[in-house]
């Protein structure tokens, strides 16, 4: 019984820590950005660059951009992947798109940054972009005959043109400003501009009760629940109730609950950006530069959103709400389970297996990523757990690259579209490249001279360009033969 309580406590503690201010300031805006991308960016504005006759130097970056901007959910990933492969630019760009989508989308980036650090998110982004294009090119080279056989088909699907409107651009940029204002750890955002003390004498006692409910060990990297955290959790529960009534049928129009839910969301962001400290005489509320910046950025969002037409903003809110329903619930359960499991894993195991940045450790990390399937974004708290338990950051990156790419589910899906031989090649390449990425980033963390890393990556890119040249010559030669 004691063990059970201990495990439950670990789960609850982990969950409470993940609902703390800094995570919400990243996640809430990220959900709205993801919704805006899905609803407000016309797909044709990017897919027009993915047609059959687009040159390689355009189609590969466009495929990466599509992965980053259009593919926040599986509704788009599979059809777009199959479409690019069969009716558009071909196997290479399709693979680049598929590989980059889980790592390059806004939710994954923002969440990785807030949990594992901005530097880590940046490394994940850059290495996934580079290796995504690399794997795409390699696949195109390996199976160059295959694309040639598709050339006869038409690509009317990719002929449509569209561009993103000024109001939608304004909404997207100001949402990104909310995200940046909420998460960047820089002066003047962190400065306190003034403080007032609310006469709430029970604040300190409430804090003590919270620490008693969710005991934590700062040495193990655990966070407790603060007074601010408890307020945020209460606000989140209120949003959950009101959003259900206000956003479920938003496509048909807004109602009173819609505005209440949105108001509560804005209030949550402001509370998360303030600094609340319980004192003997009450609750000290410090107005931070961050709170001011968040309010200004939200005002900008409102200003631009008012210029959207009804269909556009309803679509935007619906997509944002859909992401919350689809991802947030699983994330909450996942974080709880991770907290429970963490109590059962001995740090020595992880340190022995993956405490250093060598080939073995990276291979083990990738293997774990292939055989484990976690719902969207849950791979991030899992990675955080490994980091706390002493995993080296190199293998950690290798794991984070392999896990969302290679689950049994995604492998089956890819096999249904491109067939078994190509899928095996793809899985092999992803495994090799993830290990490589882990080794490179691990070397960077260990302080290896950046010049060497740059030389290595440049040699890699050079090799790819040479291979591409060879492939083009082969195709031209075959066409003439």
């Amino acid at each position, binding site marked *: 019984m004691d063990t059970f309580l201990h495990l439950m406590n670990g789960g609850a503690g982990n969950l409470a820590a993940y609902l703390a201010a800094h995570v919400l300031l990243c996640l809430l805006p990220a959900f709205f950005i993801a919704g805006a991308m899905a609803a407000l960016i016309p797909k044709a504005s990017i897919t027009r660059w993915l047609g059959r006759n687009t040159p390689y130097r355009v189609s590969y970056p466009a495929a990466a951009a599509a992965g980053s901007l259009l593919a926040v959910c599986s509704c788009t990933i599979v*059809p777009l992947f199959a479409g690019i492969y069969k009716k558009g630019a071909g196997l290479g760009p399709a693979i680049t798109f598929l590989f980059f989508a889980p790592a390059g989308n806004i939710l994954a980036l923002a969440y990785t940054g807030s949990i594992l650090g901005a530097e880590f998110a940046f490394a994940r982004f850059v290495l996934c972009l580079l290796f995504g294009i690399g794997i795409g090119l390699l696949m195109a080279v390996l199976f160059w005959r295959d694309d040639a056989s598709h050339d006869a088909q038409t690509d009317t699907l990719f002929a449509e043109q569209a561009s993103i409107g000024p109001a939608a651009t304004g909404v997207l940029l100001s949402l990104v400003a909310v995200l940046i204002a909420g998460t960047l750890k820089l002066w003047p955002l962190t400065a306190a501009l003034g403080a007032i003390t609310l006469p709430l004498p029970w604040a300190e006692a409430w804090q003590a009760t919270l620490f008693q409910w969710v005991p934590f060990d700062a040495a193990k990297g655990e966070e407790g629940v603060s007074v601010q955290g408890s307020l945020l959790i209460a606000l989140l529960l209120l949003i959950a109730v009101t959003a259900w009534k206000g956003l479920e049928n938003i496509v*048909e129009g807004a109602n009173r609950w819609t505005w209440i839910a949105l108001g509560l969301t804005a209030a949550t962001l402001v509370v998360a950006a303030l600094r609340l400290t319980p004192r003997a005489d009450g609750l000290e509320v410090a107005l931070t530069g961050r709170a001011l910046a968040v309010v200004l950025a939200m005002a900008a969002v409102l200003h631009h959103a008012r210029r959207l037409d009804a269909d556009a903003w309803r679509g935007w809110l619906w997509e944002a709400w859909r992401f919350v329903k689809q991802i947030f619930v699983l994330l909450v359960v996942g974080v709880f389970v991770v907290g429970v499991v963490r109590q059962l894993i001995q740090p020595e195991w992880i340190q022995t297996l993956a405490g250093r940045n060598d080939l073995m450790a990276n291979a083990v990390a990738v293997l774990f990523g292939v055989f484990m399937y976690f719902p969207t974004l849950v791979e991030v708290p899992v990675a955080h757990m490994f980091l706390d338990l002493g995993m080296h950051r190199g293998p950690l990156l290798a794991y984070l690259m392999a896990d969302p790419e290679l689950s049994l589910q995604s492998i089956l899906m890819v096999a249904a579209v491109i067939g078994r031989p190509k899928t095996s090649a793809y899985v092999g390449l992803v495994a090799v490249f993830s290990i490589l990425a882990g080794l490179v980033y691990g070397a960077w963390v260990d302080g290896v001279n950046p010049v060497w890393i740059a030389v290595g990556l440049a040699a890699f890119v050079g090799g790819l360009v040479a291979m591409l040249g060879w492939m083009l010559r082969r195709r031209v030669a075959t066409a003439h033969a």
Partner: protein
Amino acid sequence: MKTVKILGPGCANCRKLEAVAREAATSAGIEAEFVKVTDMKAIMAYELLSTPGLVVDEKLVSSGRIPTQAEIRQWITA
């Protein structure tokens, strides 16, 4: 009798689209047969780049979004 196909692997938007389309048919007083297409190969036979897709009598009328009831009523009464 109209045949309405909902194309999508079973994501939230596909279920929502089916609900909206059924309501639209009921409110327009039209009898329609609803078919859910979840097989990826069958979906890709239509010209679309993102799901959910709505097909009325074998013609793709919308994809990648959830149309309003009014729009769907127009398509199925046309």
